[in-house]
């Protein structure tokens, strides 16, 4: 084994090993835990940077490990996986800092950070999975690692939320497993290959392949929160804020969306999927989810719940982009994977800040909060505007490419109205919040002021992460054309997928 074969393993291990060590740390060993967490996160960032460079220069990073005859655990870095790995790594680093501040003095921190690291390892493994079998393994591991995080608080509400989350995701996982096994029996080990591998199968397999596609998409759709499989997501927001942030922005929801992208592009091949008539169905499901999520978000007074429904809606942009045939649509979907992540994590961080600092949980309690917490609210505003699609924030870029792609593919007739409706709805549920925060007079007292205003409006560890991610959201929009920007990378992916 040389460096090229070790790198993917190291990328996974850089969060896995610290996580395992953290489990055995004493609760009071705060310093060691922080050190391990941050060292792992930074190391991972360094490793991933080298990987980005390598993949750009068409280096092959691949590790293989045989589990059973014919069943190999393959970690393989291609453009798409590197995109997701980078997103996870950057956001993990930020979230870890945030979580250290958030959980100061809370019980069971060793357990929390242990599972947190496992969760990231599973996400990175899933991103690097080189075949469907490996993907399924990490997909299930992700479920297992997030369950304790959702249940972490131990209240009956948390345990219930976790149970619902588990019921959905395990059920979905089972369907995914059946689809994968079925595909394995038909086509052998299904390695992810740009352009897909199933197009060569004889035509009498096509009905079966359609069934399998349905199984896979439904299985993945549970995590990606496609309507009507989204029921767990609003329940799971009982988790601590850093968990919600990670769950909604990177780990769980994104894993589902990423899986859909993988299945369409690298298993079936987008042209073959279109030939089987599978893309339209996926697009319609995504469109329904986009509109439904936005409408539901409109009616939530609980801030985190509103954000949760917003996630339901926004993640389906990725699926929508996948369903749009043609490189432009693909770019829009894939780049939204990153953009939505950065924006949504900002929103959840800031929501956590409101709750932790002032005890604000509801939109109706946010009057005038912009004056008390200007930096936080500014971050919130940038992210919210990005979600709506206001230039120059990142969200605008995604929507622009989706729209262009739809026109190019001749699907504008129904995609454009969906995009417009969704943007209007996004505005309808975010703008009133911004209005309240900035322009309404604050009430006599905050619901529960935990952290008094001192040098900063709240703890530094809570404040900086959302500010940084908001800046990132802004930067990815402003400098979309810069080399190694998400958009450029997504373009690279689209080119390789379509063989351009």
């Amino acid at each position, binding site marked *: 084994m040389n460096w090229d074969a070790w790198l993917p393993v190291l990328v996974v291990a850089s969060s896995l090993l610290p996580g395992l060590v953290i489990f055995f740390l004493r*609760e009071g060993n705060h310093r060691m835990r922080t050190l391990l967490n941050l060292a792992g996160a930074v190391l991972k960032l360094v490793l991933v940077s080298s990987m980005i460079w390598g993949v750009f220069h068409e280096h092959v990073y691949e590790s293989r490990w045989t589990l*059973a*005859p014919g*069943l190999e655990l393959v970690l393989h870095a291609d453009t798409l996986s590197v995109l997701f790995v980078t997103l996870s790594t950057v956001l993990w680093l930020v979230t870890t800092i945030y979580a250290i501040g958030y959980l100061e003095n809370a019980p069971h921190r060793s357990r929390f950070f242990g599972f947190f690291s496992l969760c990231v390892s599973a996400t990175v493994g899933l991103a690097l999975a080189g075949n469907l079998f490996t993907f*399924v393994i990490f997909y299930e591991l992700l479920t297992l690692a997030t369950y304790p995080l959702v249940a972490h608080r*131990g209240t009956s509400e948390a*345990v219930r939320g976790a149970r619902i989350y588990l019921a959905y995701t395990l059920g979905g996982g089972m369907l995914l497993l*059946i689809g994968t096994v079925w595909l394995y*029996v038909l086509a052998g080990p299904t390695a992810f290959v740009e352009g897909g591998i199933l197009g060569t199968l004889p035509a009498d397999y096509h009905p079966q392949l359609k069934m399998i596609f349905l199984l896979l998409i439904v299985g993945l759709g549970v995590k990606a929160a496609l309507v009507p499989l989204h029921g767990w997501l609003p329940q799971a927001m009982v988790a601590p804020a850093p968990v919600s942030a990670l769950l909604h922005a990177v780990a769980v929801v994104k894993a589902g969306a990423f899986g859909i992208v993988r299945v369409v592009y690298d298993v079936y091949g987008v042209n073959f999927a279109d030939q089987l008539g599978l893309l339209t169905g996926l697009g319609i499901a995504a469109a329904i989810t986009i509109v439904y999520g936005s409408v539901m978000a409109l009616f939530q007074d609980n801030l985190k719940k509103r954000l949760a429904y917003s996630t339901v809606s926004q993640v389906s942009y990725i699926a929508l982009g996948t369903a749009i045939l043609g490189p432009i649509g693909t770019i829009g979907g894939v780049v939204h994977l990153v953009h939505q992540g950065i924006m949504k994590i900002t929103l959840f961080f800031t929501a956590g800040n409101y709750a932790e600092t002032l005890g604000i949980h509801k939109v109706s309690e946010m009057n005038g909060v912009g004056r008390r917490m200007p930096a936080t609210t500014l971050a919130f505003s940038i992210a919210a505007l990005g979600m709506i699609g206001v230039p120059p924030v990142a969200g605008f870029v995604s929507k622009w490419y989706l729209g262009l792609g739809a026109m190019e593919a001749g699907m504008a007739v129904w995609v454009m109205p969906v995009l417009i409706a969704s943007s209007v709805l996004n505005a309808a549920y975010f703008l009133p919040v911004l209005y309240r925060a900035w322009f309404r007079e604050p009430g006599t007292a905050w619901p529960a002021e935990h952290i008094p205003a001192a040098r900063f409006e709240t703890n530094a560890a809570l404040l900086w992460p959302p500010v940084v991610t908001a800046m990132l959201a802004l930067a990815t929009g402003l400098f979309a054309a810069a080399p190694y920007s998400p958009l450029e990378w997504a373009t690279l992916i689209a080119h390789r997928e379509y063989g351009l």
Partner: protein
Amino acid sequence: MADTPIWLVALPLAGALAALLLPRLATAAAIVTGLLTTVAAGVLLFGVATQGALHYEIGGWTAGLGIMLRADGLSTLLLLMTALVVLAASIYASTYFRKTYERARFWPLWLLLWTSLNALLLSGDLFNIYVTLELLGLSAVALASLGGKRAAVEAALRYLLVGLLGSMLFLAGVGLIYAGYGTLDLTVLARVLEPGPVAWPALALMSSGLLLKTALFPLHFWLPPAHASAPAPVSAVLSALVVKAAFYLVLRLWLDVFANVITPASANLLGLLGAGAVLWGSWQALRAERLKLLAAYSTVAQLGYLFLFFPLLLALPAGPDRDLAAGGLAMLALTHGFAKAGLFLAIGIIQQRCGHDTIRELDGTAQHLPATTFAIALAGVALVGLPPSGAFLGKWQLLAGAVDTGQWWWLVVTVAGSLLAAAYIFRVLGHAFGHRPYPNQPVTVAREEWPALLLSAMAALVLGLAGAPVWGLLEIST
């Protein structure tokens, strides 16, 4: 090296005598015996891996006249699993039984049980199998009754009577075989047996005896009370190994000795009963109020999965696909052995530390006993069949076989059973995560908790991630 099979029987037997004669040193004797026997199992594994199946003619008499021990990939793997599970349970038992008289009673029987397990797995002679079955049954019953309470005695008595009925039916089948073929040696029989009026009833008799012992639905009624009322280390071995020993014989007879006698219809019947076991066992486990009962019903269900393989194995043409399915079966059986033993040991710790094992009152255990809870979670992962456990790979092969042969109904059963398993495992974990106003500091008791943790980790991590040699030992490749 060539003598290793007989040492695997002689060592624990000698240990049992030592523990009987020197009650004060019984624990030490048992642990030393355990280590030696485990080493012997390892040596045997190495031997089989390098030289292929081993045979040992006892007394130097040729097979048929004398008794031959045989060790192939499957039996060697099960022997090693037995050794590891019993060793871990022994270490736990040395803390579980604290009084001298308890130890004086426990250890000789414990080592006799181990003797019988090894003897059974190695036996190559039908009547010898009967004797090992009886030794296994009696030692298991005696150990199960050590709980001492009325429920334990009652369950043990029923266990014994059912076991005796089973072994008598088995013996009747053996008699029939001897009447028809004049030999008891399995290797010879595999060569000469042919479908017909002697072999069919004989197989039916032996199988029904063994199915009774392996608690296949609907013959499982005796298992839950017996496994749930025995002392924890005993429950671990009963659920992980004893029922599996009987299953191993079913497997040997059906796929090996009587391979050309069995019919698809009979294999489908086994599959059907297995499906019943999966669904009923999982459902009862979900409804169970006590952890031990849950674990016992889970055993019923998990054994059911193993029987689901029979119709697939019979439908698949000989070749790599069939070998893979057989490998999946072995992997599932091994994983369940480790996982269930780990689960029972962990339950034992909870029972002793919390004074009960009522699921509804477990709230806060995760905080109080984090390592034990983690052991339960790992065992649970293996029982559900989630990656990266060995059971995942086993179930993968089960599903692939079902898809491949078009018998999709087994697929439905497997999925339903797995979801039910997830439901009962996470029902426990949900309670374990439940909130208690933080009354207890976390407890870790290394000597008690390590065995459970290691066994569970073996099932949930090692077999799944590093289990490739298992397939190699079973001579399976694609």
